[in-house]
């Protein structure tokens, strides 16, 4: 299934979920949870908490499916926002390091459009290597400004400025 085709399928499922269709909800879960679970595992670094996060995320999806406005964002993007929000919230509450993840089962899901990936990579390269590291650490591990400053041995003000400028550069570059 191509990214575009997958998105159309997911849109139909989400619309059905908004109308209370439980079979569609189960299918949406099967298609999207492996990707979201992987994201939750990376941010939370703990299987139990990633599972809690996933559960909360899908309960929210079930309740709020009607809020999705087709055409404005891809379904995976919409779902990712909900998941990241929950994962970052959990991280704030209790931050601790977990063990490495050993995935038992893998399920293939289409990759994102390679053009997007290339464009983002190209734009990330226009940032300095440490600025780029800063952005990637924040996105992948949900590090806060002070945590980033500690990790990169930089003053807090520098980290804040770097992030602000890097985001502005990325936005212009990706337009």
């Amino acid at each position, binding site marked *: 299934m191509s990214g575009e085709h997958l998105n159309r399928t997911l849109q139909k499922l989400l619309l059905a979920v*908004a*109308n*209370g269709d*439980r*079979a569609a*909800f*189960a299918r949406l*879960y099967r298609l999207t*949870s*492996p*990707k979201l*679970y*992987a*994201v939750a*595992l*990376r941010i939370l670094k703990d299987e139990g908490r*990633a*599972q809690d996060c*996933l*559960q909360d995320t899908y*309960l929210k999806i*079930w*309740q709020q499916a*009607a809020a999705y406005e087709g055409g*404005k*964002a891809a379904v*995976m*993007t*919409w779902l*990712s*926002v909900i998941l*990241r929000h929950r994962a970052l919230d959990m991280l*704030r509450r209790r931050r601790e390091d977990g063990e490495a*993840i050993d995935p*038992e*089962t*893998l*399920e*293939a899901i289409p990759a*994102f459009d390679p053009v*997007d*990936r290339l*464009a*983002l*990579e190209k734009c990330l390269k226009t940032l300095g290597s440490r600025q780029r590291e800063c*952005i*990637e650490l*924040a*996105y*992948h591990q949900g*590090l*806060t*400004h002070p945590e*980033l400053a500690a990790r990169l041995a930089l003053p807090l003000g520098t980290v804040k400025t770097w*992030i*602000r400028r890097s*985001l*502005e550069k990325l*936005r212009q570059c*990706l337009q």
Partner: protein
Amino acid sequence: MRYQQPELQDRLAAEYVLGTLQGRARQRFERLLAELPALAERIQAWQARFEPLDEDLRPVTPPAHVWENIAARTGAASVRRWRRLGLLATAATLLLALVTGLLYRQLQQPDHLVMVTNEQAQPVWVLRAVDHRRLKVRTLRSMNMPASKVCVLWLEWPDGHRQSAGVLSDDPGEHLLTLPDTARHDPLRATLAVSIEQGPRPPPRPRGEILFRGRWIEL
């Protein structure tokens, strides 16, 4: 208002998605999100920009119990069982139809139920739609609310329309609520929410904490 500036909105949305928008700034931003639809679009746009970073992640199928929990909490698990019950009910209905048409009609009407639980997942109210206008509420246990506060039931439709269906009684036993009379909005298509409000009468829209949100289960 400061937050109306597109540049500021965009910067906050970017840091929200990145995860560096923290603490009270994040809470303030999330409150604004409910009022400014433009913010949601900016968030989606930033998530789409960053998403390729997730591409190298290998998908991991979550353990089965995760879905079982979700299904149990949303009523999705019981679908197969209810279907089987549905078949039995249909057979019974056909038989009874020979006896009385009225009974036939009643049995054809599916029951719409919602169970409202407290934070300990204990059932507090069972709501049953009598018809499209009336709701039967059975109070199973008290929420032990302060005297000045009440629990208000809300109906929320997919198009954003929302209406109060009144105060959920704390007294044990059965109570009748009249559903809002809206021609375009079917109460059985609504999501139900319960919030804690300053009593005694429900405000025009929820102001207090939302305790519960759920959908009708069709039996």
